[in-house]
């Protein structure tokens, strides 16, 4: 975990509301797929809290990129950054996608919307491990899909199923539809689902995984105060623990963001 000020190399709009931020950290970093950073424009006084962004890609020992959607005050402030600008950064944070060779002969990667940002490196690693992988991407529209990095996923040479809400690219509808279809096709074969996206999507993926009795790993989001475990603000409810135990809630930032979907109490939305 390093606390530093990184320099903006570029901050390009991919499509309306989606941007790719490339940062030069001026020191060597080791980042594993699924880890994230807490970022904030250096000169920005408001909002005060940093924002969690998954590391999208490693461009060398000192250069990382982040793919983000502009949704509110914090990402808006990031979107104003120009090359040469400074970013306060704490990273790498959180655990990473568990890639277990024996398990992951067959891997289904599911991303909804900007959830894609957390799985590109996972896909790269799966390909490197020669896993039999399949990627399912869902987004609102073709433009959103471009913003969510679909073109980077296309270069991976992993089979790719695409859905959009408006049908402007790929199949029309939810990403869970081709996922379920695929699971029926390969039924009986052990596989692992890796999912990242909106809470409702992950909840549905978890249900599907449970019904097919396959392992499902999710990367969760929660509002974060600190990103390194001290505020205990970013919790998600656990199935296991009763209301009385200390372990009813776990921190997304340090106990996660990646969890086995089977331990999550999905009725309690960490994003409220």
């Amino acid at each position, binding site marked *: *975990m390093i*606390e530093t000020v990184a320099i903006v190399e570029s901050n390009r709009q991919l499509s309306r509301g989606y941007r790719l931020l490339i940062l030069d950290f001026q020191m060597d970093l080791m980042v594993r797929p699924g880890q994230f950073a*807490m970022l*904030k424009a250096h000169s920005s006084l*408001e*909002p*005060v*809290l*940093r924002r969690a962004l998954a590391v999208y890609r490693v461009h060398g020992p000192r250069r990382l990129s982040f793919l983000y959607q502009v949704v509110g005050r914090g990402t808006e402030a990031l979107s104003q950054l120009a090359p040469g600008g400074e970013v*306060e950064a*704490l990273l790498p944070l959180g655990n990473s996608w568990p890639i277990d060779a024996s398990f992951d002969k067959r891997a289904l990667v599911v991303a909804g919307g900007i959830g894609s940002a957390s799985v590109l490196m996972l896909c790269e690693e799966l390909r490197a491990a020669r896993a039999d992988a399949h990627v399912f991407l869902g987004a609102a529209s073709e433009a959103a899909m471009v913003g969510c990095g679909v073109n980077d996923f296309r270069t991976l040479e992993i089979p790719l199923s695409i859905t959009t809400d408006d049908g402007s690219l790929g199949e029309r509808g939810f990403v869970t539809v081709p996922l379920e279809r695929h699971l029926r096709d390969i039924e009986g074969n052990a596989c692992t689902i890796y999912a990242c996206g909106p809470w409702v999507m992950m909840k549905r993926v978890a249900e599907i995984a449970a019904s097919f009795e396959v392992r499902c790993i999710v990367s969760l989001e*929660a*509002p*974060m*105060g*600190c*990103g*390194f*475990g*001290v*505020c*205990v*603000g*970013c*919790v*998600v*409810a656990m199935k296991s*623990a009763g*209301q*009385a*135990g*200390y*372990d*009813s*809630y776990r921190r997304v930032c340090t106990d996660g963001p990646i969890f086995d979907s089977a331990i999550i109490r999905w009725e*309690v*939305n*960490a*994003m*409220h």
Partner: protein
Amino acid sequence: MTQTFNHDPKLNVEIAGIRFNNPVIGASGTFGYGLEFAELIDLNRIGGFVTKGLSAKPLPGNPPARIVETHGGMLNAIGLQNIGARAFIQEKLPQLKRYDTRIIANVFGYSDDEYLEAITILNDGDGISAYELNISCPNVKEGGIVIGNSPDAAARLTAKAKMASARPLIVKLSPNVTDVTVLARAIVQAGADSLSLINTIVGMSVDVVKRRPRLNYGTGGLSGPAIRPIAVRMVYEVAGAVAVPIIGIGGITSATDALEFIIAGATAIQIGTANYYDPRVTIKTIEGLSGHCESQGIASISDLTRSISRDQS
């Protein structure tokens, strides 16, 4: 205690017989159990830190959402999730031994007896310098009354805690009161060795589309730069009302902010929310205080405590 650091002697302060290398202390609930910061800063450099609120038994805390950001701050309703006083002693304290910094245990309970139980457990802990009695957490009401908002209830608990405590007792004041000096006087009279203030201010944020509070608990405690002017004012008022040393808290993000509190009446200060978004803020503040003393020709930071002048034109 093997590590040593060359502290600026101008920054030494003393509170209730405890010597702090400098007046900069990590605030409860924002500094974890200290260890979380070991990777980010040299813990030997800070004056001390206050643990997350410890209760006799572990507490699960509130369901999410527990935090929401506001302009200049955040609301929290963590619900005092903590590992419990015993686990703190067994699992955390031993690891903290090697740092030369003051450890203050923040103590919490749902009743007077629970407070005393937590203190009794912590009395066995080695390396704790003092207790900070958290009677002002706005997110835990029993029967609608927050102990810290009632001078009588607060004084009663303070007296009992002082009896039970093997260590100096700091009582942390609630800002959610009409006159904080009434509360302060009652608590000092009951035996508190020092007062810390302020805790968070009760607030609420509403999701206007879902038409419900953004925090699952409903209301939460406001912290961060937004509350600093209120906190400085209360420290100023309390410093005029009691003789025990005061620890100033609320929205501190820099040495300049810290100095506002010290000049208004604080002997030391705690930094809370700023640790979240600027994990090295304690160190930067210490360096800034050194620089200020240097440039202003101040021999000891304590000389600045309550140095405020009130001449009006």
